């Protein structure tokens, strides 16, 4: 894992004291709320439906056990005993007191964490593949490049007041596990014909009220031009992005309105200019970062044998583990989606337990996924049953990864001041209704957003649900056919919306159409793409 150098630590520590002073001045009245609001947002502190909410950055979703333990301790010490893992691989606390927020940031700084740039019109937390460094199919570990981008984007003076927020994802395998093409910039590490590693740039994707899939604008940017090219992409956006209309201010609108070719032309022009300015950090900086992400000391010759005689363990292994690049090891995923539970929530005790497991069984490392789950990236198979027993004793062994119960859901109207409808109760009802049929249905990614901002990624769900406000009454639209993987697609609305109970019935009708029509090993998405919307609409509305 990356370790702060003295500059990193000094920047974070200085920011804590700066915010402590700003908070003091707000409480004593020196600062009005209009003056304080942008300052607290720059430190991840929102005023939400019930209280202040603090969003803590987890760069590319990677945490040490000490960091994870601190997240659990903060939940106990400053919040109400739990945290909420988000679709940006971060964590949020829902019941923060303003007067204690600087102390939380100070505690975070002791484990090299912060909440900087988790809000506002700046470059947000860089996200990545949750299986980075462990996946069999990756070209390289994408995190050193994400870390370089993190350093470049942190406090970048030119990009702290962009037209709108800006999200970047970095992956390094053809299996996109980070919804890369639904980001403002998606970067895939690739190899060219000469065998050199470089970056493919996809620009102008996003969800929200105008979902778009990012087009490829440059198939190969050399490693020693990564920052310069990123800077060019941002400069063109910063110069011409719409500041007159927040609903048209994301880069996806600029790329769409200019056209991919014209946007790319302007980027290349700016890139050529920037190359003359020498802004690229020396490759030595990247070479300094890369060893932090070196493979841990895997045990050579570790056994691949697993005793699957315990049926509950066997089901969890089947559903919640992923092949590792190292023989004798496996990637283990903790579903934070217990049947009828709140997606992404974990108690302080559960968070600390996962910290202990990361320390004892995964080389001191765990990951947050954009699907609101937790990953132990490097688990020796010989330890897997013991690990599972510890999870099982803490209600963390739900075996439903990528199934209909593994629902992404935003906090919705239960917590969020922007939401139009509640997401969590719908997720809970679907989780309970379909738990008995989960194995029969197989892979089905269901995602729920409580408003058009799409924090629950509903556009990218095989089944998506969007909560809307119909004259003060919650109403839910159903979408089918979305995907966020290598085959990224946007879901299509089936038709008129439903009540809270009605949407659960509609999901059941959709899954029944799938089960009646599936061929071979088809997933729900495959069947939908083969037979189209019509049979689903007929079943749902006919």
């Amino acid at each position, binding site marked *: 894992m990356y370790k702060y150098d003295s500059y990193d630590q000094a920047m974070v520590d200085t920011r804590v004291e700066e915010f402590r002073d700003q908070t003091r001045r707000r409480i004593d009245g020196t600062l009005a709320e209009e003056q304080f609001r942008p300052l607290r947002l720059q430190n991840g502190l929102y005023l939400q439906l*019930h209280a202040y909410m603090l969003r803590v950055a987890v760069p590319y979703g990677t945490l040490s056990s000490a960091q994870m333990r601190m997240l659990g301790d903060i939940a106990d010490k400053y919040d109400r005993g739990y945290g909420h893992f988000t679709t940006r691989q971060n964590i949020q606390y829902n019941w923060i*007191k303003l007067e204690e927020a600087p102390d939380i940031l100070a505690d975070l700084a002791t484990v090299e964490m912060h909440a900087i740039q988790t809000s506002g019109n700046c470059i947000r937390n860089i996200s990545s593949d949750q299986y980075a460094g462990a996946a069999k199919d990756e070209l390289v570990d994408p995190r050193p490049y994400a870390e370089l981008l993190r350093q470049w984007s942190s406090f970048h003076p030119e990009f702290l007041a962009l037209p709108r927020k800006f999200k970047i994802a970095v992956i390094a395998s053809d299996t996109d596990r980070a919804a890369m093409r639904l980001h403002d910039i998606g970067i895939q590490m690739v190899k060219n014909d000469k065998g050199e590693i470089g970056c493919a740039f996809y620009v102008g994707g996003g969800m929200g009220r105008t979902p778009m899939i990012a087009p490829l604008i440059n198939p190969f940017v050399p490693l020693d031009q990564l920052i310069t090219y990123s800077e060019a992409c941002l400069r063109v956006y910063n110069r011409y992005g719409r500041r007159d209309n927040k609903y048209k201010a994301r880069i996806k609108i600029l790329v769409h309105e200019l056209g991919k070719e014209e946007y790319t032309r302007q980027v290349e022009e700016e890139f050529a200019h920037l190359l003359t300015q020498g802004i690229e950090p020396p490759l030595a900086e990247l070479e300094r970062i890369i060893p932090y992400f070196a493979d841990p000391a895997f045990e050579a010759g570790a056994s691949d044998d697993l005793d699957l005689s315990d049926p509950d363990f066997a089901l969890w292994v089947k559903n919640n583990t992923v092949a590792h690049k190292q023989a004798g090891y496996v990637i283990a995923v903790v579903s934070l989606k217990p049947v009828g539970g709140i997606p992404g929530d974990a108690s302080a005790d559960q968070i600390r337990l996962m910290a202990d497991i990361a320390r004892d069984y995964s080389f001191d490392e765990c990951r947050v996924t954009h699907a609101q789950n937790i990953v132990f990236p490097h688990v020796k198979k010989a330890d897997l049953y013991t690990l599972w027993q510890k999870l099982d004793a803490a209600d963390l062994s739900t075996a439903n990864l990528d199934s209909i119960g593994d629902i992404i859901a935003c906090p919705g109207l239960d917590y969020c001041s922007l939401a139009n409808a509640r997401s969590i109760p719908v997720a809970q009802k679907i989780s309970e209704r379909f738990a008995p049929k989960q194995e029969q249905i197989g892979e089905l990614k269901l995602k729920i957003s409580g408003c058009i901002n799409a924090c629950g990624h509903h556009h990218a769900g095989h089944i998506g649900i969007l909560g809307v406000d119909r004259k003060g*009454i919650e109403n839910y639209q159903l979408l089918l056919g979305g995907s966020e993987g290598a085959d990224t697609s946007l879901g299509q609305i089936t038709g008129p919306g439903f009540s809270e109970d009605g949407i659960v019935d509609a999901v059941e009708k959709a899954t029944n159409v799938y089960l009646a029509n599936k061929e071979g090993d088809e997933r729900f998405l495959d069947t939908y793409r083969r037979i189209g919307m019509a049979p689903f609409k007929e079943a749902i509305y006919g």
Partner: protein
Amino acid sequence: MKILTGNDLKTGAVIWWDGQGWSLHVEDAVEAGDHAAEILAREEAARHVNSSYVVDAEQTPEGIRPNHIKERIRALGPTVRLDLSLKPAEPDAGNWVI
């Protein structure tokens, strides 16, 4: 009727104007009448409340009920964690929201 709400500056807690000060309980809210803007300006300036605004509500036999579901959830707490709401001992409290 028009009632007033906002958040406690230091704690962020949802609060309601009760005629004399600010209460955690929407049941204590009072009609603000024509004085809403004046009250909010005074209370914001004194830092008794933060991010305040006027809410439409109605007086029902069970007490004051904000017209919009968002305000009813603010008044109660998250419907999915009633243990964290203002009525943790009332398992059906969430029905008031809907």
